[in-house]
């Protein structure tokens, strides 16, 4: 058919050239050559597979470098009772530089350095690194790049690249498209938005998600999640399979602690510390000033703080150590204090010792002799065991001789004849020594145990101290019993004292103190709730009522030692304490006030301890009561507790200065006196 047409073509156009037989043959030869080339190449592919197949397969797999990669989890948040974030984990990125890739082409270097500079990396330093380590593929150039910073960088890069390809910029002149060898590696860092707020309560968590102190340590496992994994494996037909197991984020803690109350507390502790700083000697206003505020009817901790504070975001900042007492070889405080010069020259062995002292939670980990704040417990023991009655009177000549020791009262001239109430109001040592004598060692030690002195309260904070060496020894000497009666010769922690005190006031319910009210999942679902837990009954309601009345007298009584603790507009009860530290007669005291408010309907207990105030005469509980007064003046209105008492003009002025309203409604809502 075709040849037919060829013939026809030739007939009509005789001059037209045709494709001759010899040309067809040559085309066939050409095809033959091509065919040979194809066969040769096919053989070549076969040979590559036969000779190097195994090696190349291994090579391909090995250069995948698909190493197991962990995906970080997000450590749970810590929130206060109102939802304020106290501790959070934020996604951050490390900038990884791959020198090898950057040096691949000349056009890459400058744009990549520009990009690194935009990421906050020092240009000269990184240039030097890249030129000195041309084969390095993993170098952390910068840490802690925030999500926003990274996003801004990536957005700019993407936009720039798109613009450059749109504008057809020659590849050697491109600034964005030639950014090579920069990677990001994600991780989380712990941040504390409020700096030192609740520092010793929270504790801090380092980069490896391991909590140090406080809640971060106690609830470490709860806060931590489970790392995810991304890994590759080879299945039976040598295919690389990839699997990603997502990370499971940690649970959140919701606290009973209220950030506002906490900051009021810290404000006044700090104020005290600054007021008496370098007062009689160089150093802080006191070795420690601690304060706990507790819900009297549940054991929930509303605030807890102890000076010196430290910034949770920079826990190892040594400058916070300035003014702290130097430590002796047994880590006990001495009479000299750390200066900035000392800090600069501090040895590497000393640094952790001092930092541990700084991070230590004074309220639960440190112990001391409670002094007169133990007297309500001595009295309660007598009332509960029936060995002391409400009608008892005590004659105080100013001292009592026991076992040949002459043990003095504060009032060396003697308080004279005192009723039970007056004994507490005046904080008479002699009266309480007589009470303890009446009770006997067995009853006394039994009730020390009932009040949980020396034992852990079980509060959910790390490093709670246990101090029961002396407390439960019924073979004690008479002198020991006598001194124990007014809070000497046995050690307590602040949390022990205030928890016991709450039970004295609330009708005898000893609540286990706690600070975490709820644990929530990363999505916010509550997974665990803490209910207030009564561990034991300590005293009867009658005894409790008696002590409420007597401790009120300590503040309101004519001779009361705690009158300076009363905030304007409220009635509160409490007990002062001044305890001489060991060795005795060195003039160093731990002064304190332990109280509850308001008198009519006790809601909160507050305990302030000033450990060796930086003043000339330390044995004055006013250093503690004034702090209590300041704190309660702000905290009670904040808690919506209405004033029950009229306020004087002077007090009104003071309240106005603080921006607080006078909530006194008139006589009808007044006290019951």
């Amino acid at each position, binding site marked *: 058919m075709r*040849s037919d047409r060829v013939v026809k073509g030739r007939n009509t156009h005789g001059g*037209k050239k045709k494709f001759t037989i010899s040309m067809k043959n040559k*085309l066939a030869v*050409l*095809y033959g050559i091509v065919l040979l080339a*194809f066969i040769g190449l096919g053989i070549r592919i076969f040979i590559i597979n036969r000779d190097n197949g195994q090696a190349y397969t291994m090579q391909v797999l090995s250069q*995948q470098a698909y190493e197991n990669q962990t995906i970080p989890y997000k450590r749970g948040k810590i929130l206060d009772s109102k939802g304020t974030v106290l501790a959070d984990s934020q996604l951050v990125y490390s900038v990884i530089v791959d020198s090898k890739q950057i040096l691949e082409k000349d056009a890459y270097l400058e744009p990549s350095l520009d990009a690194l500079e935009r990421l906050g990396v020092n240009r000269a330093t990184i240039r030097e690194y890249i030129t000195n380590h041309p084969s390095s593929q993993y170098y952390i150039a910068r840490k802690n790049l925030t999500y926003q910073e990274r996003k801004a960088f990536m957005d700019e890069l993407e936009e720039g690249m798109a613009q450059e390809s749109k504008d*057809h910029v020659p590849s050697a002149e491109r600034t964005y498209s030639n950014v090579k060898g920069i990677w990001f590696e994600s991780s989380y860092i712990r941040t504390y938005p409020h700096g030192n707020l609740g520092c010793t309560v929270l504790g801090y968590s380092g980069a490896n998600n391991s909590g140090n102190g406080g809640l971060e340590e106690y609830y470490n496992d709860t806060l931590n999640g489970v790392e995810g994994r991304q890994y590759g494996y080879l299945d039976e037909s040598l295919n690389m399979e990839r699997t990603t197991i997502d990370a499971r984020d940690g649970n959140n803690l919701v606290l009973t602690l209220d950030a506002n109350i906490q900051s009021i507390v810290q404000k006044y502790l700090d104020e005290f510390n600054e007021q008496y700083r370098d007062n009689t000697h160089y150093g802080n206003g006191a070795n420690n000033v601690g304060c706990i505020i507790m819900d009297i009817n549940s054991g929930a901790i509303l605030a807890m703080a102890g000076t010196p504070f430290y910034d949770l975001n920079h826990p190892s900042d040594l400058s916070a150590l300035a003014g702290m007492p130097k430590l002796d070889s047994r880590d006990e405080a001495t009479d000299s204090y750390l200066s900035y010069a000392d800090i600069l020259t501090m040895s590497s062995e000393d640094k952790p010792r001092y930092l541990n002292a700084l991070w230590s939670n004074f309220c639960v980990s440190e112990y001391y002799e409670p002094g007169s704040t133990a007297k309500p417990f001595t009295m309660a023991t007598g009332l509960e065991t029936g060995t002391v009655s409400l009608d008892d009177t005590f004659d105080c000549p100013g001292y009592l001789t026991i076992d040949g020791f002459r043990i003095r009262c504060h009032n060396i001239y003697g308080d004279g004849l005192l009723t039970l109430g007056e004994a507490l109001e005046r904080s008479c040592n002699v009266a309480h020594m007589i009470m303890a004598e009446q009770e006997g060692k067995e009853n006394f030690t039994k009730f020390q145990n009932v009040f949980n002195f020396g034992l852990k309260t079980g509060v959910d904070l790390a490093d709670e101290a246990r101090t029961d060496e002396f407390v439960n020894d019924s073979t004690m000497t008479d002198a020991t019993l006598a001194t124990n009666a007014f809070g000497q010769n046995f050690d307590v922690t602040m949390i022990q004292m205030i928890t016991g005190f709450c039970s004295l006031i609330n009708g005898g319910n000893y609540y286990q103190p706690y600070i975490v009210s709820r644990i929530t999942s990363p999505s916010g679902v509550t997974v665990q709730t803490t209910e207030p837990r009564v561990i034991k009954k300590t005293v009867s309601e009658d005894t409790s009522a008696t002590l409420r009345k007597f401790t009120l007298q300590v503040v309101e009584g004519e001779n009361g030692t705690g009158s300076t603790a009363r905030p304007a507009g409220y009635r509160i009860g409490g007990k002062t304490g001044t305890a001489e530290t060991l060795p005795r007669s060195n003039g160093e005291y731990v002064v304190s006030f332990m109280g509850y408010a308001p008198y009519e309907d006790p809601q909160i207990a507050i305990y302030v301890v000033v450990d060796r105030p930086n003043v000339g005469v330390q044995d004055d509980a006013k250093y503690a009561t004034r702090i209590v007064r300041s704190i309660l003046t702000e905290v009670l209105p904040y808690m919506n507790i209405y004033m029950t008492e009229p306020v004087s003009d002077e007090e009104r002025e003071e309240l106005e200065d603080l921006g607080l309203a006078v909530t006194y409604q008139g006589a009808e809502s007044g006290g019951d006196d």
Partner: protein
Amino acid sequence: MNWLTRLFKKRGNIDYSLLFIVLFLLAFGLVMLYSTSSYEAAAEYKDAAYFLKRQAVFTLLGLIIMVGVSFIPYTFWKKISFLTYMVSIGLIILILPFGLEVNGAKRWLALPGIPMQLQPAEVAKIALIIFSAMFIEKLGRRNLLSLKGFIAPLIPALIVAVLLWKITDNLSSAIITMAIVMGMLFVACPDYKRFVAMGASVAAVGAGAVWFIVNSADQNSLDFRGERILAWLDPQAYAGGKGYQTIQALYAIGSGGMFGKGLGQSMQKLGFIPEAQNDMIFSIICEELGLFGAVSIMLLFLILLWRFVAIASNADDFYGAMLVVGVFSHIAVQVILNIAVVTNTIPNTGVTLPFISYGGSSVFFLLAEIGIVLSVARGLNAEEVLER
């Protein structure tokens, strides 16, 4: 009107087997292109189908052109062959002021108004086929036997080759243009000796150059082509530099085995073979489809080339046959060079695999060439059409 009706009456003579093979290659090419490029496309353009979409557009345009060209009597090209040739040269020269640089090479012209670029080298190849077929026909058998007559048709090819080499720094396109014309001459000229001699001398010069480079006292002073020779001889030693692409392609081929890792399962395309969808796509075919897939593709090309042989042999006239021989040479040379580069049989030079590699200009003008072949297959020459 009369002319047109006659034109369409002749539709029955379409070479369906050629058409089918081309369509199959195109479809297969798109599948492989997607498999090969999706990883990089997703990484760079946030769209896995970025390259696929662009290539599909060019393929579609190319198919339209192919159909259109197949309806044009091929003798039409003879009339405008000189113009075509001059235009193609003009386009190459236009690169000098207006050229677009991509990956360090200035080989493209931006088309005004549309986001597409034209590669003048691809225009030059088809133009040279059209022009050389006319030239060789004009010279006639007798003239071709003389030295002067033999060299004459090589000169326009040489001009194009030198321009491509010097302006676009594209040695492989220069080699291909020369090879196309050599192939046409081989078929047209009833002589073997001179071709054997030429082949031998090219081989000798090549071997000499390699020997010189290998024994060169200061290998650091070599230009990039010299380094490529060294990388060719020992790709492992240059695995971090010039030999990188080659050795990675060899890894891909070697790890494919008899039946490959399966479509889409290549690991080498995951950033190890840069721009694998271009020159190195055949190595990914070997990796994913194995020796079996590679040989299948080569067989398809052989069948395609065989169709060209058949069409040329049955062509109405010498000019039509020469056009087909030109297309035959073009595709044969590119396939051979591409596979030879990928398998490191020859030094690395950028040659795309026809119909399969990514490249808009390439697939577009290749389909135009197929259109010409189809028109030859249909015995479509203007004189006849007008005559009937």
